[in-house]
């Protein structure tokens, strides 16, 4: 029963800030981010690692935070959607999504931004196929993906230019 479970000390860095907490071992990373740190930009859509609304960057890799225990992130560096902007300025990927009408309800958007961030960090000029593969784990129910493809291409172009 919960009161008998030993909590585990975890130290991790989220969006550049270090946190030390004692956590229940069953606590999911997404629950930690949303409930403990109030970083509610990361969402939950399916609970079974399909939809990717919970995608965050963990040590440079896009992971689904609904399928990672918070204690597994001990020592890790996490980037969430809230960490993308700099000094109030949108990250070029965020801007490209806005400029391309790459979102409607916006619920899947944080996860898609992070998956795009990971893609463009190792592939500066992704092909259409590579883009599709990179976001295959991010379900969007509003856009039919067409404007998301455009947004990612635009983000890649803008990046290559600067």
């Amino acid at each position, binding site marked *: 029963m919960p009161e008998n479970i030993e909590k585990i000390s975890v130290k991790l860095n989220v969006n550049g800030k270090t946190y030390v907490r004692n956590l229940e071992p069953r606590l999911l990373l997404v629950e930690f981010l*949303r409930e403990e740190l109030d970083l509610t930009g*990361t*969402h939950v*859509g399916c609970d079974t690692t399909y939809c990717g609304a919970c995608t965050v960057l963990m040590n440079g890799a896009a992971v689904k935070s609904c399928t990672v225990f918070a204690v597994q992130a001990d020592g890790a560096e996490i980037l969430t959607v809230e960490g993308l902007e700099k000094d109030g300025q949108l990250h070029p990927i965020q801007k490209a999504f806005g400029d391309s*009408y790459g979102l409607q309800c*916006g619920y899947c*958007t944080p996860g898609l931004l992070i998956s795009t961030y990971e893609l463009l960090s190792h592939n500066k000029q992704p092909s259409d196929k590579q883009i599709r593969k990179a976001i295959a784990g991010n379900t969007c*129910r509003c856009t*039919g993906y067409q404007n998301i493809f455009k947004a990612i291409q635009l983000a890649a172009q803008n990046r290559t230019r600067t």
Partner: protein
Amino acid sequence: MANKFGGEEKKWVGKALPRKEEDRLLRGRGRFADDIKLRDMAYLRFVRSPYAHARIISIDTSAAEALAGVVCTLTGKEIVPQTQPFIEIGPDSKVRDYPFAVSKVRYQGEPVAAVVAESASIADDAAELVRVEYEALEPVMDAEQALQDNSILHEEAGTNKIWHGVFEYGDVEKDFQDAAFVVRIDRLHFHRFSSTPLENNVVIGEWNLKDDRIYYSCNNSFPSFAIQFLSAHLNVHIDRIRVQTSDIGGSFGIKITNYPQMAVVALASKKAGGRPVKWVETRSEHMTSSAHGNERTFRDTRVALDKNGLITAITSRHIDDCGAYPRYEPLGCVIWSQVFPGVYRFKNARIDFTQTVTNKCPVGPNRGYSRMQHLWFLERVIDICAHELGIPADEMRMRNYIRPEEFPYTTPNGCVYDSGNYPGMLELAKQLIGWDAWKKKQAEAQKQGRLIGIGIGTTLDSGTNNFGQSQIVNPGAPFSGNSQGANCKLDIYGEVVVAVGSCPQGQGHETTAAQVVADVLNISPDLITVRTGFDTERNVHTGFSGTYASQFAVSGLSAVHGAAQKLKTEMKRLAAFVLESEEDDVEFGVGAQGPELRAKRTGKSINYWGLANIVNVNSAVLPVEMYDITLNCRYIWRAPFKVPDKQRKYGNLTLTYASQLHIAVIEVDRETFIPTILDYVAVDDCGTVINPPIVEGQVYGATAHGIGAALLENCAYDAVGNMLTSTFSDYTPITALNMPKIKYGHIQTPSPHSYSGAKGMGEGGAAPIHTISAALQDALFSNGIIIEDSFNNADSLFRALVGKEICQAERLVKLERRAS
């Protein structure tokens, strides 16, 4: 600079304005219901039935209550004495619908109890400790079987039948006597699916015992409907229920029917001493027990055609499966008749319509609600007749389409199609896809034994409905017409603030409402704040407010336009007094001190702050005859409807008819039977477009839903009522990997019914489902296949082509050629 003052030039409406919603959503600062945390909040978890049909013998909550951190539990037995069963929309309904199963469960996933705890995880643990004993009953999983009443879901009703009615117009039998061809189709079936918004249902409810009011923060998408149900159910004056919505992560209609969960949360809060209680649905709960779209079976269809392939009459028997409880039903039993003849010219028809309950998840209005099932049926009729008679699919449509010069067109059941140009759309779609080239490629591929099909789907998205159609299903229903409210004001410091009664889920209402007001006041949309998201206490809603049924561009924006015009009139009158000018000489524009009104002759001006100041905090300068000026203008827009003729089932049921025409090229792999889309075009007509990229985005979204529904997404049950697709991993919503590239085109036939010429849009009429069925049939007809189900995948195509179990033309279709 020659500013156009005063007049309403369309400077902003029609422009690709970036969305005002974007900034917060891109930064992860949207405010979705689950993001809200309240002081002393407790968490609710449901205990749900593993059985589809069973009697509840006992519920033991003692072990759950004994767990540390559990606040309380709640069961059906407890709530019955405190509540009324939910309102039933059907006539003389004896169904007793509570938010919990009381004596028996009627679908897998039906709530039987709830636990409330200090944390979500303790609530999870406690729910596992609730012991429920069931006695299994025979489940009824098939609609036609259900109508035999061998096993009855609602004993008090005495039958599984929810509604029956015949829609008959014209001299049908005469057309069959005179017909050159009669086509008979034994059975067609439209499958069950859901648009599954990515954000699940969420309710935070607080039954505040100090002021005896209920406060909700939730993501219901038709709150003015929900509060009417909740007020009667909870015995609480409707004014004591406050509902607020904020950002909503998609609904597509599915979140209209989460009012039972809203009821449980309020009752749980009351039992917990008035603490706020939060319920966040899991995806599996959503799949098994939120709402699905309507499933429909079409039996014994007869089609009369003349010698040119013109359809003259249709008769058919339609059986709609609404799952375990009617909830929003039986409204779907009439809503399909908004598009009674689809886009076709036939005048005479008889549709015998029955709705039944089965032991499946209750249905709810899902994108394209009730019309798409019927439109798919009509498109199947067209393509089956075309193939049987050897008429090309495009030619068949050209012969049967309502012609552009016939608009406004009155349908056999009295609906008035406002405008449209279906042949024009077909022409454009054929151009965009390269019709002739594909026809050639198809012929060559066929020689090599490849299975390639080209299909057309023409469909309608009827918007702004006349709630008077509810009286066709229930003559005693107290609803008719349609209305929407909006408020437009200058706040105390002169800011322009607009409030609407809608609760958008990504449709860009903040942006389009600002575009409308910007044109009225001749200022930039950046200067306008739009408050969307429902709030009962903003007092801008009517009983129809919410976001559903393709209507914001018509009803919502007409209300916004009306409110802005009212404000403009007041501002002009007040400015004329202050500037000592004639009203006609007052011009609207932007000056050095922001937006202002100027007197043409004297050049004197007053800015918005100045005007607002006089009315709000400097009112002693106002003459008495101007006391009626508030600069806070509420406007209710009403749709010009009449109550339909209930006996004849005749009248105008919807105001605008947007249309969609899609063409798909599909190949079915000879070895794996996997269908692959090779090319796809979507052409849309929603009248005058307010914001082109917003419209285009919704066309893509609706197209994805349709393609997903046609090829991937199916709410499947086994024979005893286990839902087989209760996670996304099983249900497999369409992803970036299987979504084809869409070629987009549009035409504009302005509607005479909205101030801007816009038609409601967004549902998309499920065009891809019709189109993909048509393309598959085109690929396989020479193998003796007709497409009988709206859902087709490699498995079903294998069963059709190799197993010859389904889709066999010779079993399902009969063509009778009459001597001419």
